[in-house]
């Protein structure tokens, strides 16, 4: 059974004539590593937002673990899917980097010592331990991106959907992120990476979906 299933999904933004996503039918298996690539404005981000239930399709049906996505609440989706938005600033709302990473763990009911351990691991892994007491809004875009990634990865979702994860990251951290993603994928977490950074997903994702004008142009396995 497929993990995320899209069946003839179309979506048009209010006031726009052409659909951002046009009659897309696609399925993602659990633990699959997929890259959705395409030029700016090809509908990649809209597709991701549809998959996590932030947008409702005007036509077609989306299912998550066999259940229609409308039946899930956002927190329920959040427990299954980890979604990293294109703009990291919209995902930061805590007073310190440490609290940002720990936020989801606390709400997940993780024990204090365990939560501390996970936070330390991610902050050290991405070399941002020194920034732990910093206000997240004062960080650079790249640092913000890393903090958001750490916060989402710490929750260990079944599948990670990342919208342009390498947008503001330097090459050193990009390589580290790639290594980590390969590692968590090997542990069974699914990856759906939306990007136009072909080099980043080249060795990382076995399946590549090419989008243009809201449609799927190619699906390479």
């Amino acid at each position, binding site marked *: 059974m497929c993990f995320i299933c899209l069946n003839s999904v179309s979506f048009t933004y209010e006031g726009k004539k052409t659909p951002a996503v046009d009659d897309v039918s696609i399925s993602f298996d659990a633990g699959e590593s997929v890259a959705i690539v395409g030029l700016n404005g090809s509908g990649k981000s809209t597709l991701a937002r549809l998959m*996590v239930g*932030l947008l409702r399709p005007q036509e077609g049906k989306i299912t998550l673990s066999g259940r229609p996505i409308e039946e899930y*609440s*956002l*927190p329920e*989706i*959040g*427990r299954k*899917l980890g*979604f990293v*938005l294109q*703009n990291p*600033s*919209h*995902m*930061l*709302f*805590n*007073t310190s980097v440490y609290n940002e990473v720990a*936020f*989801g763990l606390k*709400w*997940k009911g993780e024990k204090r010592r365990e939560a501390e351990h996970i936070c330390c691991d991610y902050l050290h892994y991405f070399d941002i331990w020194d920034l732990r007491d910093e206000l997240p*809004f004062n960080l650079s875009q790249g640092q913000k991106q890393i903090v958001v990634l750490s*916060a*989402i990865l710490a*929750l260990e979702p079944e599948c990670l959907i990342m919208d342009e994860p390498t947008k503001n990251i330097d090459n050193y951290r990009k390589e580290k992120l790639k290594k980590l993603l390969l590692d968590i994928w090997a542990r069974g977490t699914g990856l759906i990476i939306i990007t136009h950074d072909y080099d980043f997903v080249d060795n990382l994702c076995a399946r590549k979906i090419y989008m243009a004008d809201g449609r799927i142009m190619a699906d390479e396995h």
Partner: protein
Amino acid sequence: MNIDIRTKLLISAIFSGMALVYQKIDYLLIILLFNILTLALFKIRIKLLLCIKKLLYMSVIMIVLQSMFVRTGHPLLKPGGICLLTDDGIIYGAAIFLRFIILILSGLFVLNSNISELTRGLVKLGMPFEIAFMIQLGARFIPVFFEEMGEILNSVQLRGVDMRKIYKRKVIKVYVSIFSPIIYSVWDKAEKLAILLELRGFRTNPARTYYREVCFKKIDYVIMILYVLWAAVFVGITLVR
């Protein structure tokens, strides 16, 4: 019908002024009727029903509050000796509700126009350009502000926080934490915008020119006279009664 923004401002001021002056429900209903007719005449599409539906909850609160503070009228609901609903309270509450709708529709009538046009109109009416420009920027940033707030709220929920199931005290805590990045983001945007404006030579020359000028046409004069006459007749009739 394409009319000057100043004509729209005058019509909006007439309706808003009358809504504030009159208290009787029958008068307010007539003003509201003319307000809706005006919107229809100028083909302004507003999801009126949606707007009223959202205000309905507020109207119930208003009616209850009015009944609690208005001591006149017959009590209709008196649980445990506390007067919660009186007939006078309902009338006052309904009047305030109608006033709100008229004020909102009048505001929407102006805001439905091009925002740059509104700035030019305000400048022509004698408002300093800096203040008119601030109004323009404010109006442009309101949707962005709400969009960001929605985005952050979604992000909080996607990290497993179920706002419907948690205690009220915790909901407040979550909302407080959401407001800090929003305030920061607004502050940051304002600062960046100020720098950008300076870089593009904002206020370097006091004699500012405009690519598009706003000017009255014959139709504007006709409409303004008609609305002023209507307001005068309405005031006259209500004074006689």
